[in-house]
């Protein structure tokens, strides 16, 4: 498989505080890569850094940040904005804040195509209708004339997806796209995303905190904790053989209908996420970890468990085996 997006040792900091410290991940063409973690772990800023959309006080550094062979670190803002929305597109959690309330759905969608391709307005609107049909919006001809506030949450997210697909991007980054939606709508949107990914051969970087979403959507998973990718594996391997103590703890926390008897406590992770300063060294999880030992404060090795599975921990594979 060829890598479409390659991130090596990405570091992001915001005025002195480290948000991401050496994250690496690879998104292959035509695969769904899930970046999973809890709030503050750095998963959203990683996506923003890839898109070149960090806030002004954010600084990024990496040994490599490549999109289809192009070095993104070397691109200026103009070249970057030619890529954004064109070959790589992004959708966010709250579609209401990403859509402009003052313009109709159609004119916002058409604008994307006009900006990147210089298409005429009529042709761009035709394309908008075509894409709304693709994302299974009923009566798309009517919808293009409507304003965002006239649509339900699920419809708005479909419009956002359609808008992201206007220029046939190769990479779609989706940051918690269904977190604000009801469960039945979430299932519909995720199903749509999965189908589009397959039909259009899209690469999707899906950011989520929901392990259920990860299990059902991902080909590959990277688990982030305190600014690091602590474990990376294919979805099948990760759920069958989680290696990092954090991944295991997280999986034990999720209530699964029929799995846990009533009155039996859920697994839980004690303590809370540490504040990571710039000079923080060692494993970010050691204070909450049952396996912690003195050398966890030093440099942590990345251990491999086969070609498709690695994790960041002092423990040998057999030592952490359940």
């Amino acid at each position, binding site marked *: 498989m060829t890598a479409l997006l390659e991130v090596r040792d990405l570091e992001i900091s915001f005025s002195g505080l480290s948000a991401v410290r050496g994250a690496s991940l690879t998104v292959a063409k035509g695969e769904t890569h899930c970046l999973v973690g809890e709030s503050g772990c750095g998963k959203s800023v990683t996506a923003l850094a890839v898109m070149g959309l960090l806030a002004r006080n954010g600084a990024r550094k990496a040994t490599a940040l490549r999109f289809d062979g192009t070095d993104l670190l070397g691109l200026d803002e103009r070249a970057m904005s030619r890529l954004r929305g064109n070959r790589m597109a992004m959708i966010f959690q709250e579609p209401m804040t990403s859509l402009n309330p003052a313009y109709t759905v159609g004119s916002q969608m058409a604008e994307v195509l006009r900006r990147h391709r210089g298409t005429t307005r009529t042709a761009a609107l035709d394309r908008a209708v075509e894409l709304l049909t693709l994302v299974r919006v009923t009566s798309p001809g009517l919808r293009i004339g409507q304003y965002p506030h006239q649509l339900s949450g699920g419809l708005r997210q479909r419009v956002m997806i359609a808008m992201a697909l206007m220029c046939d991007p190769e990479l779609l980054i989706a940051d918690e796209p269904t977190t604000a939606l009801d469960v*039945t*709508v979430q299932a*519909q949107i995720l*199903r749509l995303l999965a189908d589009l990914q397959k039909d259009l051969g899209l690469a999707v970087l899906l950011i989520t905190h929901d392990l259920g979403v990860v*299990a*059902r959507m991902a080909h590959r998973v990277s688990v982030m904790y305190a600014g690091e990718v602590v474990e990376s594996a294919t979805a099948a391997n990760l759920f069958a053989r989680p290696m990092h103590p954090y991944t295991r703890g997280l999986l034990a926390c999720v*209530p699964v*209908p029929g799995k846990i008897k*009533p009155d039996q406590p859920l697994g839980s*992770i004690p303590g809370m996420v540490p504040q990571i300063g710039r000079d923080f060294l060692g494993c970010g999880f050691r204070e909450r970890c049952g396996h912690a030992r003195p050398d966890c404060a030093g440099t942590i090795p990345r251990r491999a468990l086969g070609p498709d599975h690695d994790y960041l921990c002092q423990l040998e594979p057999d030592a952490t085996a359940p």
Partner: protein
Amino acid sequence: MTAPLIEVRNLTRHFRVRAGMFSDARPVIAVDGVSFAVPAGDVLGVVGESGCGKSTLARIILGLLEPTSGDVLIDGKSLAGLDRRERARLIQPVFQDPYSSLNPRRRVRDVVGMPLMAQDGMSAAAARKRVDEMLARVGLDPVMAERLPAELSGGQRQRVAIARALVLHPRIVVCDEPTSALDVSVQAQILNLLSELRRSFGLTYLFISHNLAVVEHVASEVAVMYLGRIVEQSATQTLFHAPRHPYTKALLASVLTPEPGLGIPETGLGDAMPDPANIPPGCRFHPRCPVAIDRCSREAPTPMHDRRGLVECHLEGAAS
């Protein structure tokens, strides 16, 4: 069968939503003829999507909203006849968002002690002791008592909210999405804490959530709400193993368990979104129902009670 601790009888709440000073009010039916009973020590889970009326129901039971009609009985006594302080000693809330549920200007000690202050008749020293005890029970370090909410994490704030709810030793706690704003690992801590406190204080919970997996874990009985009505209610195991209402089936299908390879389920629900300001005639679920028949759009189904519980669907009525 023991007498229920909470009994809700035919509860209805309408809102009149005005678009402006001179425009006509439009009725929004948030809760429409809801009845249920919860025995002491049980946990009734209430599930449903946004706009189904579950939060309005919680607010009526807490006495924050007046019902348009119907009655809430606690231990056989009508809630409407209770004095505010008497009610506070019986029922307390835990809300969803730990960021808006604590007054940002007051220290943790004052937040937790507030219900005691409202009751009078308790010395400051006794109140202080009770607050310290309560903070310890919810797993908060004594130094936290002097902090402001802004200095606490989401999980710690929710522990403070739980301490505030339990400081009067109420009999019922209404939990309105208590873990929806929390991270997965913190959610597990809070759910374990709530279960542990329920056992040791002998509490009864009304547990409202949109997360079915969470409800399955904590509730002994589950009520499914759709556009203001309970469309199905039964013991948790029964509901999860043999759902009867098509809406319950769709909800359960939408639960994404962390099992790779299963893919994303097809819910069978259409695009139509439920709108409490515009409730469809007949069965209110029929525009989204994958198995609706002609009758569903004309005639509203009536609740059918049997030993498995309650269901409100024409198809179930016909099948039995």
